[in-house]
């Protein structure tokens, strides 16, 4: 198995990395089955200034756990995670999270959802109004300010979720399979819009996905994870210029390469699953 080198995995970025992860381990205790589950088993990773990093891995490989630790929702069992040199201890507005399930406040309208962070951080009202208005325009939801999330399509809801986070002007965007629940067409549109927002505002982004094409389309680098226990199998640099053409020969070559890396891990996940099922029925 390919183990990542312990030496700094990022040499190509000149600026200091914003997120630094060293020796990250995360264990869970499965109370029902009385066993320790190792979600992340030693991880070193740097995320550079304005870098778009995608994390690709089979289900259960600990990629969401990684995001939860960076977000501050979960605590690492051991190891260090820092943002601009500061250890991460709890969630905060400097790390905006976009969830797969949108997680909008259903009792608040579009504009109130986007205003939520600003209001809770006691930004003056006049300033809030202006930021909210601009943000709604930039996510293309002008005219929908008074609508409730219940009245919006999945794609529109995810735009609100993105706008709500961007209104806070975070240092880093954390996205946990944000488009997985959308249909293929909407997903493509959302990917393009996300890239547009990202390149217009140049932000650091950590994007979790199990979709190979999405990982390559969006990422400056693609981190391929192993099956549980989660480690970094390989970091693939995507040197293709944007906008990327998913039908081009270069893109497909990249896709084949990443798919081959992922194949073993998907197999391993299945084998583990079958083993577990075998244990239950046997």
């Amino acid at each position, binding site marked *: 198995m390919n183990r990542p080198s312990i030496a700094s995995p990022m040499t190509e970025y000149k600026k200091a990395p914003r997120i630094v992860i060293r020796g990250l381990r995360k264990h869970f205790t499965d109370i029902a089955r009385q066993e320790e589950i190792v979600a992340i088993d030693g991880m070193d990773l740097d995320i550079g200034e304005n870098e778009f990093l995608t994390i690709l891995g089979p289900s259960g490989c600990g990629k969401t756990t990684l995001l939860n630790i960076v977000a501050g929702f979960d605590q690492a069992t051991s190891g260090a995670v820092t943002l601009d040199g500061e250890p991460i201890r709890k*969630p905060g507005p400097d790390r905006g999270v976009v969830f797969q399930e949108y*997680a909008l406040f259903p009792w608040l309208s579009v504009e109130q959802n986007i205003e939520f962070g600003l209001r809770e951080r006691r930004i003056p009202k006049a300033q809030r109004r202006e930021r909210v208005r601009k943000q709604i325009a930039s996510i293309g939801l002008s005219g929908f300010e008074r609508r409730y999330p*219940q009245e919006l399509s999945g794609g529109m809801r995810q735009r609100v979720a993105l706008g709500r986070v961007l209104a806070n002007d975070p240092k880093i965007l954390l996205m946990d399979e944000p488009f997985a629940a959308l249909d293929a067409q909407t997903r493509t549109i959302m990917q393009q819009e996300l890239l547009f927002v990202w390149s217009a505002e140049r932000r650091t982004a950590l994007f979790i996905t199990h979709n190979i094409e999405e990982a390559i389309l969006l990422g400056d680098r693609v981190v391929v994870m192993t099956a549980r226990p989660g480690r970094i199998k390989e970091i693939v640099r995507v040197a293709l210029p944007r906008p990327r053409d998913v039908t081009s020969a270069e893109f497909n070559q990249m896709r084949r390469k990443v798919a081959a890396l992922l194949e073993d891990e998907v197999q391993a996940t299945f084998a583990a699953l079958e083993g577990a099922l075998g244990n239950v029925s046997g």
Partner: protein
Amino acid sequence: MTVLPVTVPTSGWDSARIFAGARLVVRRVIGPLVVLVLWYLASTHAWLDPRFVPSPVTVLQSMQEWMFGQSGSTPYSGTWLQHTLNSSYRVFGGFIIAAIVGVTLGCLIGWFRLVSDLIDPIIQMMRPIPITSWVPFAVIFFGIRDASAFFLIALGAFFPIVVNTAAGVAGTPKLLIRAARMLGIRRYMILPRVVIPAAMPFIFTGLRLGIGLAWVLVIVAEMLAVKSGLGFVMWDSYYFLRMDIIIGAMLSVGALGFLSDLAIRLIGRWVLRWSHGL
């Protein structure tokens, strides 16, 4: 970027809508009408002893006298409004107390583990005890006065309100709390800004159950522990076998209970307007 237009159903008054509306009204009126006709036939054909079940016509006449008659001309003449106001006042007062205490305590129980561990067992222990069994204590401590009714009504309505509120608060999706935290909410604002709005559907369920119980209990309280109100009239008229007045009082309570439930439902519909079609 293209934005899809959202079509809203148009609201107009065309003939098809009027017809559909009329059909709905007819369908909903048929049931009560059948009951009324059967009741009338039962009295005219003497299937039931009219001394015990007076005819709807008698009830209507008695109601009229009770509501609008010259006070003093018969024992109940013209006293309806006073009794109804008395009962409504007690229901309203008791319910408000129950709502304030129930929602507050429910939030604390649902949100703070310590409060739940300390208070919830007491509530679960007291909840199955019929409120009627508190009547002797109410009379001893509060006397034959409004306070007794307030106490009984508030106690009865408190339980569904506190239990539903606590369940709603405890069931707040963890994801929404995470979302609020990553957006920079201060810890003590999570309860008012996220948890309580998320629990609102449960709180309103509790309030509706509570107002229903309040009308049950005001009658109990007035029969046993107060000397006015619709419940008192029922008990008093029973001694004189004025079954017409009893039925009149029953209908009054039914109508008032329906109206107060409707009021809460309308307030709830406005507060929960975000959840339409959920």
